[in-house]
């Protein structure tokens, strides 16, 4: 049960963003820029970064939601599953492997990021901006994962819930729906 009163029909992060709309607005905006804004990384690649970090933070809600978003954007379910299990052997480019490795270091802490990991990403063609965005996306999900689990929000079990959330993230990105979320009430 959540530590603070959240609406029953809004599990995980969704209830927190409605509980505190004032802080939700810049959090949504930052996420929209990083995961959906103009970038040389695809939306699917950026969702993979979010997925790997959430998975390693053992945040089931976020890991499952962003796996669903990545699966929908990539059009297959194999890649997201494999990057969670092993970055080095996953079916992604060498550049993505290097960026996901940096993200996995950021998940541990900022100081864990090594010059070698940065160098490897650069030698595989990653730009300074791609490295910047990777570090900030990984850091942002260290915020989200702590926010979601630190307040003990509800984690649904039903796969259909995450499929629906993933579709919403593809359709609307991270912006608040103009009509709100009352239509989700059962």
């Amino acid at each position, binding site marked *: 049960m959540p*530590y*603070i*009163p959240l609406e029953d029909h809004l599990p995980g992060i969704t209830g*927190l963003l409605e*509980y*505190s709309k*004032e*802080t939700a*607005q*810049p*959090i949504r*905006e*930052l996420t929209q*820029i*990083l995961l959906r*804004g103009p970038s040389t990384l695809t939306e699917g690649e950026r969702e993979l970064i979010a997925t790997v970090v959430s998975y390693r*933070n*053992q*945040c089931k809600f976020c890991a499952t939601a962003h796996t669903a978003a990545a699966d929908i954007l990539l059009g297959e379910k194999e890649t997201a599953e494999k990057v969670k299990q092993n970055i080095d052997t996953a079916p992604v480019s060498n550049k993505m492997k290097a960026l996901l490795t*940096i993200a996995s*270091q*950021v998940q541990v*802490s*900022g*100081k864990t*990021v090594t*010059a070698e990991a*940065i160098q490897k990403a650069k030698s595989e063609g990653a730009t*300074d*901006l791609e*490295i*910047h965005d990777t*570090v*900030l996306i*990984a*850091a*942002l999900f*260290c*915020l*989200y*994962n*702590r*926010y*979601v*689990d*630190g*307040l*003990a929000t509800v984690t649904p079990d039903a796969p259909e819930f995450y499929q629906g959330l993933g579709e919403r993230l593809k359709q609307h990105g991270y912006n608040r729906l103009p009509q709100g979320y009352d239509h989700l009430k059962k």
Partner: protein
Amino acid sequence: MPHINLGNDLPGMRGLMAFSPATAEPMNLLAEILLRSNDGLTPTERELIGTHVSYLNDCFFCQHAHAAIACHYLNSDKELVDDVRENPAAANISNKLKALLNIAALVQNGGKYVTPEAVAKAKQEGATDKDIHDTVLIAAMFCMANRYVDGLGAITPTDLSTYPPRAKQVAENGYGNHIFSAKQPTAQ
């Protein structure tokens, strides 16, 4: 030296925000709401939470930058700020703030480390739901900021006398893109 070419020599978070002003804007807005609000927790208490989490994350720039802001609010009571930064349980602060700093420390470890007992303790000491929400989100925000700063190897001044002038700028003008676009304050 930073891991990427930032195109500026500003310290810590400021250099990163100058490199990426588009993401800096919502980050500063979030900091302004969470750290400058007087609704429930005071700005001083909010900065102390950020300072302690940054200390636990071993982020030199952030812990000293936010300690200096807290110190500014506390009329230069550096001893109290240092006590809270390193060991809040023994510091001369309210039991409520101690209980909230304990929650913040658990969040620093990971969201799942927060226990119902730690939350119950804070409520028993008078913390409201909003205080608990804000504490968790402030701690989580610093887990982002500390990783951003150290993960990109941002420039970290080791001369502690350079922190108070920048702290005064934030204390007087709040968080916003002015912290990197305006002339950098230096000691008198």
